[in-house]
């Protein structure tokens, strides 16, 4: 028995909030990207918690795609950052 699902949701909501706060307030492109990463991570955590709650692997499969999109965004944007 682990914690209730709501506690997992609360944790990932707080993480998402921190990421959003970072992306909104910081001016540096790298910090904005880090904020986006934190938000993606929080979404992954929600999916894994949901996968555990409903005992299905669908949520874990979704995390793979979140990971792929996050990595794609990073590798697309980071070389551009060197231009400035």
């Amino acid at each position, binding site marked *: 028995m682990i914690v209730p699902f709501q506690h997992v949701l609360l944790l990932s909501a707080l*993480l998402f909030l*921190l990421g959003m706060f970072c992306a909104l307030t910081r001016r540096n492109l790298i910090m904005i990207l880090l904020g986006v990463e*934190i938000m993606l991570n929080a979404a992954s*955590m929600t999916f894994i918690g949901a996968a555990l709650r409903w005992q299905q692997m669908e949520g874990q*499969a979704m995390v793979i795609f979140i990971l*792929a999109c*996050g990595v794609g965004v990073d*590798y*697309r944007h*980071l070389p551009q950052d060197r231009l400035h």
Partner: protein
Amino acid sequence: MNLLPILFYAIAALILTATTLAVTRRNLVYAVIYLVLSFFGTAMLFYLMGAPFLAALEIIIYAGAIMVLFLFIIMMIHLEKEPGKFLPRRQLIPATLISALFLMAFIVLAGADAGGWKPLVAARAIPAAFGIYLFDTHWLSIEIASMLLLVALFAAIVLGRQMRPAAKPESEEQTP
């Protein structure tokens, strides 16, 4: 008292502390290193919630590849300090407002769902079974994701190549 809830709350506190420290650091290197700590905590949490394969991916890709890439970029380019105040009021007030609104909406939505208060039953997706499931049901999405990564790779190469001719005339102008 069960051990798993204690572990969960301890790791959750670690993650939240590390992420808060990362978001509020002015020095980018410290921010990235705190974020690596946060991602390690997240990987432990993934393992606790029954996803050992994704925990390994989290450490290898997020903490290992992306964060080290960020560190390289930070150290390679010379970053000038952010102008003005650290957290300007013009951005801080809307961000705080949006965050408060988001948290309120979350509390209302989570409170409306009564089914989520039962403790979760521990389970584990064995990596082999997970891989078979993934390629059995989501093979098309996997292909699309791999195409996306390929396009990102091409974009990085093209952008890197465009920079070189633009940088050369500048250095020639500067040398004489």
